[in-house]
C-alpha cells in the first residue's frame, strides 16, 4: 500500500519528518517496506514528438523512432514498444540519464546504428505499474521540457506499507493518518460529510435481490460534468500512489478511494439501461466483459451489478463493465458507493483470479458507515474541475438487514494489565484508544468500548488489549523472563534419536535430506507398493506422491552423485514417511534409511550391529522373508516380537537398473518410531576375572543351509559360562559361489575363581565339536 507523505500531512498536522513518520508507522504495526521519492525527479527525461518510425530488416524486436524536441534536429532511438504514432508526444530519456531503477542510459548501437537514449513507459519513470507501452502524453505538451513539468508532477515521498489483514482501514490515507496523529499526539478530525443536493430530483432506482451479499447500496446522480484533466497536485499524488491519472472523473473516483478507503464507481447515467441498478448473484455460466476487455464466465458465487433491465454492468466490488464506461462526452453520472459482504468478495476474487484496487479493499472490509463522507468528498473534489456540477435530489440509500451491527466490548483494565505486564487504568486505556475512534464509557470497574465502524477486526476484549499495546508502544512494555519450575531437556526419544545420528556419523555416513514428495512411478521402480497418499494440488505436476519409504529419495541421491563422478557415497536419512491408512490421518512414522553405494550386505549388517550395540536394540534377522525391493539372496527382514522393524541387505539389481545406479548398494531401513520408543536395556556389570585365560581355535566345514548364527549359538551353548569371547575370524570357500564353507572360530575361556586346567579346556572343546557336529558341520 503506497501512502503519500504530503497527503498524510493534509489530513493531520504531522511533522514534516520522513524518518520520524517511517519509524512511527512501523511502531504502530504498519510496517514500512520502503520510502521512495517519486515524481519529476528523473533528471534528463524530456518531452519529444515522434516524427516517424521505421522497421529495420535485421532487427525484428525493435523499431527505429525519430524524435523532435523542438530544436530542429532529429534524434534517433531504438525502441521495443510499438504503441506510438507519428505526432505522439512521449517522454524521452536522454543519454546519461540515471533511471529510478538504477539503469544508466547510454548510447548503444543495434545492428551498428546508435540509439540516443530511450523512450519511457510509466513504470520506467516510477509513475505506476504500467509497462504495456510507452507513455503517450497530451499532444499539446510543449517539446523539450522536463516531462514532469509537462505532466504537472511534483516530487512526492511515498511510504510503501505492508498492511496487515486486520487493518482494512489502513488501506486509506485517512486510516494511516489517524494512527499517526494518535502517536504524535496531534489533532485529527475524522472527515465526515453528508450528500448535499444542489439540483432537482433525478435519481437511479436500486433493487437489491441478494441482500445478504450487498448490505448497503447507494447512488446519487451528478450532472454538469465536463470531462477534463485533473489539477496537477491530484495527478502527482495519484501517480505517487501508483495510479495513472486519466481524467478528472476517474481521478476523483480513485483519489477518494485512496483517501477514504471506500471504492466507488461512476456509471454514465445516459447509458444505464432502465435508469437504475439491480444487484443479484450471477447465473452459473453467465458471461460479461469487464473494463479490461476480458470476457469472464461467472458462477452463482459472483455478485453482479446489473442495470434496471438486468443487463450486467459490473462484477460487484471487483470491476465494472465496458458497456457503461465513462467517455469523453459523459456529462451525467450515477455514482455507486456500496458495502459488500467480505467472504463473498474473497471467494469471487479467488475464483476469477482478478484482484483490483477496489476488490483488495472490499475483501478486507470497508467502513459500512463511511459512504456518505466519501460521496461528499467525491463531489467536493470533482467540483474543482466542474464548477457547474449539480448533485441531484433523490439520493438512494438502500440497506438490508445484513448491515453489520455496532460492536461494543467490555474491557477489564486489570485484564489488560495482566496480559501486558504493566498496570493500565481505565483512564489510560481511554486516552490511548479514543484518538483512533474508539469511544469508552466507564461501567463500574470495567470499560464499555464502542468500536468504530471502520475497525471490523475488533470484536473481543483481546482486540482492545492489542490496540492498547500498539498505541502505548511495545518497546515501552519492558522485558521480563518468566520463571519456569520445569527442567528443560530432550525427551528420552529425542536423546536416543541424537545418539542414533551420532553413531551413523561416526561410521562415516553423511546425512541427506531428499524431497519428501516422489514422482509417479518412483515407488514401483524401487520395487515398493505404489499405494500412497497423494497431493491434491502439487506444485509441480506429477510430483505428488507422499513417500512411504525413504529409499527412493536416497537412491536418487546416489544416482545423482554417481552421474557426477562421485561413486561410493554413504548416506543416511531420518525422516517421516506417510503410508496410507483408514484412520483420521495417514499412518505417518519416523524412519531411518542408510544407503551405502559400492558396498555389499555385510556392510549394512555392520551398521545395524553398531546401532544394536549402541542403542541396546534387539531384533531377529529373518532371511526367509525378503523385503520388497531388496536383493533376494542377500537381504533379511528385521523383526522384534510380532513387529517388522526394518530391512537390511542390498538393493535389488532390478531396482538399481531402474534408478540408473551401477554400483552395488547396501541398505538398512528401520522404523524409528518403534525402535526409539523402546527403552534400551542398560548393560549390567560383570566381574572381570583375575585368572589367566586360555584360547583355542576350531574350524568347521559347514553346509550352505546352516547359518553362521546357528553355529555361533551352538558354540556358546556348549562352551557355557566359561566362554568370554567368540570370534569368527575366517570364512573360506573352496570355489567362489560354493554354498558350503569353512568357518573358523577362536574361543577364549576364563574362570572367575581359578586357573583352568588342560582337562577343563579339553572337555569344553569336545562339547563344542559335538554340538556343531549335530548341525551337520564337521571339524576340519
Amino acid at each position, binding site marked *: 500500500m503506497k501512502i503519500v507523505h504530503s497527503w498524510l500531512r493534509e489530513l493531520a498536522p504531522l511533522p514534516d519528518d520522513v524518518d520520524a513518520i517511517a519509524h512511527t508507522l512501523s511502531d504502530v504495526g504498519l510496517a514500512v517496506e520502503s520510502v521512495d521519492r517519486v515524481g519529476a525527479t528523473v533528471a534528463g527525461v524530456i518531452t519529444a514528438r515522434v516524427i516517424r518510425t521505421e522497421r529495420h530488416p535485421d532487427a525484428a524486436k525493435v523499431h527505429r523512432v525519430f524524435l523532435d524536441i523542438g530544436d530542429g534536429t532529429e534524434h534517433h532511438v531504438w525502441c521495443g514498444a510499438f504503441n506510438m504514432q507519428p505526432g505522439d508526444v512521449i517522454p524521452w530519456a536522454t543519454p546519461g540519464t540515471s533511471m529510478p531503477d538504477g539503469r544508466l542510459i547510454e548510447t548503444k548501437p543495434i545492428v551498428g546504428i546508435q540509439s540516443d537514449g530511450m523512450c519511457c513507459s510509466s513504470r520506467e519513470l516510477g509513475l505506476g505499474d504500467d509497462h504495456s507501452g510507452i507513455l503517450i502524453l497530451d499532444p499539446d505538451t510543449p517539446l523539450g521540457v522536463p516531462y514532469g513539468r509537462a505532466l504537472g508532477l511534483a516530487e512526492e515521498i511515498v511510504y510503501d506499507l505492508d498492511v496487515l489483514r486486520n487493518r482494512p482501514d489502513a488501506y486509506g490515507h485517512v486510516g494511516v493518518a489517524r494512527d499517526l496523529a494518535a502517536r504524535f499526539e496531534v489533532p485529527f478530525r475524522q472527515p465526515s460529510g453528508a450528500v448535499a443536493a444542489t439540483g432537482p430530483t433525478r435519481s437511479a432506482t436500486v433493487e437489491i435481490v441478494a441482500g445478504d451479499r450487498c448490505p448497503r447500496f447507494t447512488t446519487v446522480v451528478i450532472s454538469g460534468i465536463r470531462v477534463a484533466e485533473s489539477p496537477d497536485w491530484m495527478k502527482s499524488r495519484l501517480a505517487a500512489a501508483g495510479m495513472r491519472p486519466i481524467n478528472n472523473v476517474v481521478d476523483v473516483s480513485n483519489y477518494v478511494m485512496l483517501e477514504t478507503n471506500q471504492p466507488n464507481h461512476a456509471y454514465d447515467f445516459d447509458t444505464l439501461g432502465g435508469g437504475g441498478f439491480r444487484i443479484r448473484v450471477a447465473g452459473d455460466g453467465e458471461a460479461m466483459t469487464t473494463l479490461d476487455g476480458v470476457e469472464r464466465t461467472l458462477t452463482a458465487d459472483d455478485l453482479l451489478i446489473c442495470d434496471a433491465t438486468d443487463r450486467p454492468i459490473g462484477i460487484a466490488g471487483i470491476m465494472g463493465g465496458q458497456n457503461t464506461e465513462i467517455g469523453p462526452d459523459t456529462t451525467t453520472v450515477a455514482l455507486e458507493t456500496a458495502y459488500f459482504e467480505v467472504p463473498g468478495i474473497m471467494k469471487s476474487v479467488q475464483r476469477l483470479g482478478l484482484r483490483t484496487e477496489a476488490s483488495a479493499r472490499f475483501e478486507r472490509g470497508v467502513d459500512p458507515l463511511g459512504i456518505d463522507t466519501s460521496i461528499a468528498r467525491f463531489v467536493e473534489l470533482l467540483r474543482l474541475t466542474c464548477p457547474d456540477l449539480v448533485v441531484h435530489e433523490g439520493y438512494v440509500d438502500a440497506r438490508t438487514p445484513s448491515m453489520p451491527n455496532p460492536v461494543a466490548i467490555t474491557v477489564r483494565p486489570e485484564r489488560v494489565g495482566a496480559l501486558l505486564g504493566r498496570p493500565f487504568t481505565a483512564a489510560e486505556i481511554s486516552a490511548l484508544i479514543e484518538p483512533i475512534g474508539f469511544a469508552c464509557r466507564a461501567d463500574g470497574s470495567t470499560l464499555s468500548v464502542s468500536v468504530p465502524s471502520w475497525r471490523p477486526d475488533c470484536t473481543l476484549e483481546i482486540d482492545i488489549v492489542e490496540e492498547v499495546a500498539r498505541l502505548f508502544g511495545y518497546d515501552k512494555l519492558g522485558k521480563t523472563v*518468566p520463571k519456569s519450575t520445569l527442567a528443560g531437556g530432550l525427551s528420552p526419544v529425542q536423546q536416543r534419536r541424537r545418539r542414533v545420528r551420532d553413531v551413523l556419523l561416526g561410521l562415516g555416513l553423511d546425512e541427506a535430506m531428499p524431497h519428501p514428495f516422489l514422482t509417479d512411478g518412483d515407488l514401483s521402480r524401487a520395487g515398493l507398493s505404489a499405494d500412497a497418499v497423494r497431493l491434491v494440488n502439487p506444485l509441480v505436476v506429477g510430483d505428488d506422491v507422499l513417500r512411504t519409504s525413504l529409499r527412493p529419495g536416497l537412491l536418487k541421491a546416489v544416482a545423482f552423485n554417481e552421474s557426477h563422478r562421485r561413486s561410493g557415497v554413504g548416506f543416511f536419512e531420518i525422516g517421516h514417511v506417510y503410508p496410507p491408512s483408514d484412520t483420521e490421518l495417514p499412518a505417518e512414522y519416523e524412519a531411518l534409511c542408510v544407503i551405502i553405494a559400492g558396498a555389499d550386505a555385510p556392510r549394512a549388517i555392520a551398521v545395524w550391529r553398531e546401532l544394536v550395540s549402541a542403542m541396546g536394540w534387539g531384533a531377529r534377522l529373518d532371511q526367509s522373508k525378503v523385503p520388497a525391493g531388496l536383493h533376494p539372496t542377500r537381504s533379511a527382514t528385521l523383526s522384534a516380537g510380532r513387529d517388522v522393524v526394518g530391512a537390511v541387505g542390498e538393493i535389488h539389481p532390478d531396482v538399481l537398473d531402474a534408478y540408473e545406479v551401477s554400483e552395488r548398494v547396501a541398505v538398512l531401513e528401520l522404523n524409528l518410531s518403534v525402535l526409539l520408543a523402546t527403552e534400551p536395556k542398560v548393560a549390567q556389570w560383570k566381574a572381570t576375572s583375575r585368572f589367566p585365560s586360555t584360547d583355542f581355535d576350531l574350524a568347521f566345514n559347514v553346509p550352505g543351509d546352516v547359518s553362521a548364527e546357528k553355529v555361533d549359538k551352538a558354540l556358546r551353548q556348549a562352551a557355557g559360562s566359561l566362554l568370554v569371547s567368540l570370534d569368527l575370524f575366517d570364512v573360506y570357500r573352496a570355489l567362489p559361489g560354493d554354498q558350503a564353507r569353512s568357518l573358523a572360530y577362536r574361543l577364549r575361556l576364563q574362570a572367575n575363581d581359578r586357573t583352568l586346567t588342560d582337562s577343563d579346556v579339553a572337555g569344553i572343546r569336545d562339547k563344542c565339536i559335538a554340538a556343531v557336529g549335530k548341525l551337520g558341520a564337521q571339524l576340519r
Partner: protein
Amino acid sequence: MIADIDAARAAAVAHIASAATVDDLRRLDTELLGKKGPLAQLKAGLGKLATVDEKKAMGAALNDAMTAVQTALDERRTVLARAERDVRLTAEALDLTEFVRPPTRGRAHLVTQAWERLEDVFVGLGFQIAEGPEVETDWYNFEALNMPPSHPARSMHDTFYVDHGAPGSTVLRTHTSPVQIRVMQAIQPPIYMVMPGRVFRNETTDATHLAVFHQIEGLVIDRGITLADLAGTIDAFTKAFFGTEFGSRLRPSYFPFTEPSAEFDIRTPKGDWLELGGCGMVHPNVLRAGGLDPEEWSGFAFGFGIDRMAKERHGVGDVREMYTNDIRFIEQF
C-alpha cells in the same frame, strides 16, 4: 689365588667392553657368570683353601669380582640397548604427510546442525521439546488456531491438500503451530516447549524460499504470562543464540492465532535490524481449542525458520542447494 681372581675379573670386564650387541652380552652373561664361568670355577676351588680366614678373604674377593662383572654387564647393556634403540628409531622414520587419507567422519545435514543448536539453546533456557505429525487435519492446522473455514488469513497460507479422508480435511501442515494444540491437549500447564519440525507451503521455490522447509516454534503457558515475558524470552534467546552483543525488539503485527501479535527483529552488533520471526500472546480462542481456560492461563508463542539459520551461518547463496544431496556440497561442512 687373588691374582687369578683379578685376572679373571679383568678379562671378563675387557670382554664385556668389547661386546658389540645386546645379544653378545646375553652370551657373555652365561659365559662369565654361569656355572662354568671362570669365577664360578675359582669359587669351586675355595674348599681347597686351608684356613677359614683365607676362605673368607678369597670369598669376599670373588663376590666383589662377580659384582663388578655384573655391573659392567649392566652398564654395557644399557649403552648398547640405547644405541640399538636409536638405530631402530632412525630406521623407523616416517613422513607423516605421506598417504594422508581424507577424514571419514560423516556430516550432519546443515539443517540438523542448526536445529540441534537451537534446541540446545532453548533447553538451556528451560524448555522441553515437542513434536507432531507433518500430515495434519484441517482442524489442527487451521480451525483450532482461530482460523475457521473462510477465515481470510487462510489465504496467507498456500496449503498443500492430500487425498486422505473427506476432501479438504487433510493438509500438509503449513506451520508447526498445530503442535501447540496437541501439546495443550496432552499436558497440563505449565508448558515451556519448543516445537521444531518440517512444514510445507505450496509456493514456487527460489533462492530464499522453499516449498518444504523447517520451523521452530515456542509455546509458554503458565499463570500470569505477559507480553513483557514474551519480549524478555525473545531477548534471552537472541543473546544466548547469537551472542550477548545482539539485541531484539517486537513490532506490532497480525497472526490469527496470537493477540497481541508481533514480528520480532534482532539487532546485530553493527546496529542493523533483521526480521527473524513472528510471535504474540496465545489467542484466547486457541487456548480454548487446546482445552484451557483463558481466564486461568495465559501464554505466548513464537516461531521462525530453521533453514535460514543454516543458510546464513554458512553463507549458502541458494537455500535449495542444501537439499540437492550433492556430496560436493555436503563435504564442504
